């Protein structure tokens, strides 16, 4: 085929936010039918770049050429009119509306609800994406929601489809189906921009890749002809490609857990027996007959797409939700099901929640205050009269900052001023420096840059060596394979029996994640 202009060309596109260069002179060229990966670690600027292409954000410099002609994409509506569709990482569907209503809003072309419904049915059978137009979105699973998002884009016959981290919420089987659909689209001439940090997928699916690091293009290649090592080198720079083990450890031993009375309990980890909890939230998931245990010195992982009861399990283990039956949860042999958060923490439990800002830390409080948030239970930060010992609190915060290499001005900086990775390091550090004998953590390295993520994982391994029982809830199968000794899968409030990691594969876990049990 003779030179048809590329569907999309970015020429030195930049976006600057008050002194911070999110994107620096990025140039990319995407011909029709090509599946083009945009690769980079968290914080490299991929999302910002896509927002500019889709009109959510305006560039501060550079040009966008659409089919050879320079254009200004003033808004998402303008982008759609040009023929650009985008599926966001965090979906933009309205939960209280039906699928058809969501689509109708999106299309904005005066179609009647029934014609929208008809169009949805047509496309869904054509591409094998199964949806029910009259169901409310809050009833749909995550995978189904993504199908709706994709379908609504396809209804406008886009020439370019942008997908932002599409597989982070899918089971391996759903990933396969997505790839089949994308390849079909590509063969029909649609260009695809595929944003991801998952190297294996990119190597399988994409024709070309542009690599971003710290807002700049650091490489351009055909991913199938590269090795993972070379790709990673382009992502984080050769100099740091060898993962440093930063030696983040909480040095004293956790062999003994002292209760308030000063007695030492025998360490026996976490045991859950026949745990059933009815969810109070109409959109929540009820837990059904969960039974498992985590021994001291092991990491047990729970895999599964979010929305299958993980959040509810975390709340019941941490003490936010209390049970009538105290024996359903044993922390170091102590019946804890009905105990409060503070008592469980005094018995050696620590928790790292998924949400950093807003749950794990208070955004407008200083790091010092945030250290006090859970440190008050174990770190003698209160005087005898019940007043806060500010100096001790500041000292604890400084200890966390230095042991875990948190980049920040001082312990008085507000939590919201830290980057995602640094805040996560702080929170993990705060919990680990309390020497827990049982640790429950959810998505500990989500949205964190590669360096920090590896430091955090090493810290978890070190904690395991010291005899802590760790329950790791994560959507990231790679992380689970790397860290866990045994793995379970959560599906609709149930847990599959734990299997040694060595006996599990992506495929077998994927089946369990889709509900195919026994």
């Amino acid at each position, binding site marked *: 085929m003779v030179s048809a202009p590329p569907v999309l060309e970015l020429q030195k596109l930049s976006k600057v936010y008050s002194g911070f260069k999110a994107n620096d002179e990025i140039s990319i060229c995407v011909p029709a039918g090509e599946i083009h990966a945009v690769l980079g670690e968290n914080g490299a600027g991929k999302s910002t770049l896509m927002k500019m292409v889709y009109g959510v954000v305006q560039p501060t410099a550079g040009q966008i050429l659409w089919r050879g002609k320079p254009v200004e994409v003033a808004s998402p509506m303008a982008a759609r009119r040009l023929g650009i569709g985008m599926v966001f990482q965090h979906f933009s569907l309205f939960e209280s509306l039906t699928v058809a209503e969501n689509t109708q809003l999106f299309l904005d072309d005066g179609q009647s609800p029934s014609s929208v419904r008809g169009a949805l049915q047509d496309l869904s059978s054509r591409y094998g994406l199964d949806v029910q137009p009259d169901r409310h979105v809050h009833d749909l699973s995550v995978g189904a929601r993504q199908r709706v998002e994709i379908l609504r884009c396809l209804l406008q016959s886009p020439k370019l489809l942008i997908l932002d981290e599409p597989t982070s919420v899918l089971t391996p089987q759903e990933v396969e189906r997505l790839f089949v659909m994308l390849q079909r689209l590509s063969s029909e001439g649609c260009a695809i921009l595929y944003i991801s940090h998952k190297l294996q997928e990119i190597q399988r699916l994409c024709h070309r890749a542009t690599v971003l690091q710290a807002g700049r293009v650091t490489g351009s290649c055909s991913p199938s002809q590269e090795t993972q090592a070379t790709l990673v080198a382009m992502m984080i720079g050769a100099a740091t490609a060898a993962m440093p083990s930063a030696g983040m450890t909480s040095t004293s031993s956790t062999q003994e857990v002292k209760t308030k009375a000063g007695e030492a309990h025998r360490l026996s980890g976490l045991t859950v027996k026949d745990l059933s909890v009815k969810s109070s939230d109409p959109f929540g998931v009820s837990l059904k007959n969960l039974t498992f245990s985590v021994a001291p010195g092991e990491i047990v992982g729970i895999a599964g797409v979010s929305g299958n009861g993980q959040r509810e399990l975390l709340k019941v283990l941490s003490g*936010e939700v209390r049970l009538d039956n105290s024996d359903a949860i044993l922390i170091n042999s102590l019946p804890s099901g009905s105990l409060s958060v503070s008592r469980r923490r005094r018995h050696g439990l620590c928790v790292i929640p998924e949400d950093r800002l807003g*749950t794990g830390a*208070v955004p407008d409080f200083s790091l010092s205050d945030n250290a006090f948030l859970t440190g*008050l239970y174990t770190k003698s930060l209160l005087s005898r009269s019940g007043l806060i010992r500010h100096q001790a609190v500041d000292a604890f915060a400084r200890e966390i900052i230095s042991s875990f290499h948190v980049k920040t001005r001082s312990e008085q900086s507000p939590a919201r001023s830290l980057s995602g990775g640094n805040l996560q390091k702080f929170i993990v550090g705060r919990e680990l420096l309390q020497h827990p004998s049982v640790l429950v953590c959810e998505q500990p390295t989500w949205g964190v840059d590669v360096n920090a993520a590896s430091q955090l994982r090493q810290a978890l391994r070190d904690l395991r060596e010291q005899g802590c029982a760790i329950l790791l809830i994560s959507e990231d199968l790679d992380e689970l394979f790397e860290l866990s000794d045994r793995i379970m899968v959560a599906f609709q409030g149930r847990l599959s029996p734990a299997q040694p990691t060595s006996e599990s594969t992506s495929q077998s876990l994927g089946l369990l994640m889709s509900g195919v049990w026994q």
Partner: protein
Amino acid sequence: MRRLTLEPRPVASPVWGWASPVLAVVLTCLTGLLIFALLGKDPIEGFHVFFIRPVSSFWAVMELLLKATPLALCAIGLAVGFRAGIWNIGAEGQFILGAIFATAVALHFGDWPVISLLAMMIAGALGGMTWAAIPAFLRSRFNANEILVSLMLVYVAQLLVSWLVFGPWKDPMGFNFPQTVMFSDASLIPTLIEGQRLNLAFLMMLGSLVIAHVLMNHSRLGFSMRTSGQAPLAALYAGFSNRQSIYMGLLAGGACAGFAGMAEVAGPMGQLTDKLSLGYGFAAIIVAFVGRLHALGILLASLVMALFYVGGEQAQQYLNLPSAMSRVFQGMLLFFLLATDLLVNYRLVLRPSVRS
């Protein structure tokens, strides 16, 4: 092409944290002068009557402090709640109930020196706390919005007082006026200086400011309440009881307002009448905000607000303006504060627009 845009600041500006209320006060005064002019009054005279007269003599300053006392008392109680995310709007009603409980003591056990007064003080605080406990319970148990419940109770409190002074507690020798008998001397709060009306309540107000400050900033309870107010999910994660915050937040407000109510009937008024509801409970909300929910700020803001009150009375006397003028000033002050507060978290800058 450059245009004015708002940019978020990385850290809240401490300078503007203090400057914002000051700017708001200035803007309010300027607008007030404009209103005087529009109403055909000489703005200079208006300024003099409204702002200068109230502080122009020792007696005037004492009266100002007297007016500021219930405002600051109510406001600090409210501020404790607001910082915990508990919106107690019913301080006016809690004020009234404090006055009612204190009156009950005064009418039946009012003649014992020292003991009566102490009992009245406790009764006042209890009255306010009882009234505040209702929205606390309903919020904690049924998640009923405390703004609406506490507010509805204001109307109920006003009707309750009306019933009492027109009915069972009416002074039989009072020419059928809706008021109780005057309290005996033992039931009146002692004044601080001979010949002035400023009384012990002023000192108690200062004390409560200190207590509230220590509670909110240096105690574990205060920390848990602040966390509940800023990040309720984090508070739950950390094991802080939401229920505790709700009760403490409302009861603190109730106790302070109730005490202020007691100080009003056992102080300048000397009896319970149906003119008890003076709007202090609502003005205190503004004082709390303008004072940045902070003890020192509240003290200063209560002085400003007292100035508006007294100024309004003066304006009525000397300028023939309705005394509701002070409510207009109060409302404007809050509006301006909400506007100037933007500058605490955002910066106004001139930036090149879109593409260069």
